[in-house]
């Protein structure tokens, strides 16, 4: 084997090792940090495992927002067309969080059917709804339950 060839082989080997390292890194990170989106109905049907982090989206149920105690805790419920999930959260809510508006919550289910959120996202614009939330509300189908102002703007 000539000098040049050996060097080239070395280079290619290094490249392969490096690239597979990068791939392994990506795959493990992917596995750990991928978040699924579930609808309130799927949670009510018991199709969602507890103690794994995921996202849930829908409308903030009207009349459900309350602040127990005088601290920063908030209790509310997220609903789609068929089911409602109680949510517990502690911290600052986004500006566009309001009853009857679409939200997405990040967190886990506890053992008693409540969703413990660590992050709440509301839309950035009052006329815009995330596609995930829109689908949770069956937008565009016969049993859609979108709020009126959303339907007008889409």
């Amino acid at each position: 084997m000539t000098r040049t060839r050996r060097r080239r082989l070395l280079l290619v080997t290094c490249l392969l090792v490096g690239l597979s390292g990068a791939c392994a890194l990506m795959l493990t990170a992917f596995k750990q940090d991928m978040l699924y989106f579930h609808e309130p109905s799927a949670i009510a049907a018991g199709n969602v495992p507890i103690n794994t982090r995921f996202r849930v989206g829908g409308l903030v149920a009207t009349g459900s927002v309350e602040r127990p105690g005088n601290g920063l805790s908030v209790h509310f419920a997220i609903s789609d067309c068929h089911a409602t999930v109680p949510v517990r959260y502690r911290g600052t809510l986004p500006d566009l969080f309001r009853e009857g508006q679409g939200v997405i919550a990040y967190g886990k289910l506890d053992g008693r059917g409540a969703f413990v959120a660590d992050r709440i996202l509301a839309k950035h614009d009052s006329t815009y709804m995330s596609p995930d939330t829109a689908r949770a509300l069956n937008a565009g189908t016969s049993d859609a339950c979108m709020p009126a102002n959303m339907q007008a703007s889409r």
Partner: protein
Amino acid sequence: MIPELGRLALILALAMALIQSLWPIYGIAANRPAYRQVAGPAALGQCFMLALAFAALAWSFYVNDFSVTYVADNSNTNLPWFYRLGAVWGAHEGSLLLWMVELALWSVAVVCASRTLPRDVAASVLAVMGLVSAGFLLFTLATSNPFARQFPAPGQGRDLNPLLQDPGLVFHPPMLYMGYVGFCVAFAFAITALIHGRVDTAWTRWARPWTLAAWVFLTLGITLGSWWAYHELGWGGWWFWDPVENASFMPWLVGTALIHSLAVTEKRGIFQSWTVLLAITAFALSLLGTFLVRSGVLVSVHAFATDPSRGIYILAFFAVVVGGSLLLYAVRAPKFTAGAEPVSPLSREGLLLLNNLFLVVAAAAVLIGTLYPILADGLGLGRLSVGPPYFNKVFVPLTLPLVVLIGVGAAMAWKRTRAEVLISRLWGPAIIAIVAGVGLLGLTVGVHALGAVAGCVLGLWAIVTALEELWRRTRGSRWMLSRQIIGMALAHIGVGIFVIGVSLVSGYGGERDARMAPDETVQYAGHVFVFRGVDAVPGPNYQARRATFDIYDADRRIATIHPAKRRYDQSGQQMTESGIDAGLFGDLYVSLGERLDGSAWSVRIYNRPFVRWIWAGGFFAALGGLLALSDKRYWRRRGKRASPAVASLGPQPARDKARA
């Protein structure tokens, strides 16, 4: 009347773009030199027409012409005039127009600089840019007419999205787009190289300044965007790995790789095919970014279009441009003769090869994280999202080695460097970086956050090695250092500053939620925050509730800040304005949550040490690029190499042949 003129100008611009591209292509194919001359004037004409269209839209905003749907949707008579003008690019149609105006400006810049280029190169570069422009003009005219009218005209507009009502709107999008679009010039040069089957030192010397210019704009645009998000969104973060941020970041990564590989191609005549491929990729990623933002497949602050026909058009356009150029690449690239000598790992080009690998793999990791959720949704694998943890876990290990390489590269010479030389140049900076990093942190905030300390040392390493290189080079020769060298060092110092900022913010920063009633205090990050209460303050198009916080360091008041909540009159939307006490060594940042019972508010307090260094790093890097760009070796006239007598007396075809 004015909007109709604007639309007419757009149609004429399309005609000009077609002339700019088809005539020169025919001229080159049929060897009719006269036809190539059309490209320059056509580019000027196209730019003029687009400027007219842009002015027409800006005028419609200025005079509140709500019969134009786009104006009615994004403006309001109570909006201050500078936001009304910024609102021109505040949504889909207008930002597309901005995209095209800037592409035309780049074409005009190529025309102005074309005296440094052979005529057939200038003509084919302009032809490629004309094709891209024609594609976008067609898209605008067919699916996104900004001048569409509505009757009857509403009496009042719906107002600009409050998030955009900020000085950032005036600067960030134009800068970012200049960067995005600027890679089109590098792309056009790459296609030209493929058509002419030639990548030589002269070609790289033409392509380099354009790539660098685009990169400077993109760097500034991303930096400004990060700063804007930090102070406007009220969440205390500076980067979120939002898909649209990623869309601008991927071309930046590949563009950075391109700048470095162009340097190798110019100096050593190797990596030609790779450089051309990178140029194509950088622009392909810019187009992909445009597609992601405009097609509505993404959930994001920036994604405003949700019309499927638009998405399909852009996707088809993307496929044609990228597929076509990759096909051309596959056919022509094997013709480039690669340098026969192998690359030594202990040489500047060897390190730059590694740099390119890391940058491209990092870009690929970002691409996968951004696209996978869309693909998974399309393939029915479930609706999932990939969040910041993925990107941090993958991106940080892939880019930290790059910072190490910056330092080693500074000490490395082209072709081959002996290991002893390398060590003799590097041990000093290494010791300085470690001692200064650990020492400074140990004396001030403590060394408990190990990752942050390591990051700080790495950042100092990049800075010190860059300074060492400057010092060594000035000592070695009596010559003034070229601007290119100083620019490079400055850009690397910028990276160091950025790394220090990121490490310290993530290692020592923090936040705390609190419930505060007037005159209550909270202690956080070594300071005392006193809540003084909330006043009502009317704004031009909103009502604000403005809070007052005094910040004390021991007994001394160091700052008074006013975070606020604004309710915009027209949309009824609520917005948080953060209150920031900014400083070179850190920010104290308060954002107002919502009103709880009585007069108490929920409040979030952030400690953001060294956060300004993140943007300072970006500005330094851009400044370095600008300095390198002004290096006079890029701006020699083309007449220099051919004999002046031939250039002025010889007939046209002979002149061009002599230069080819």
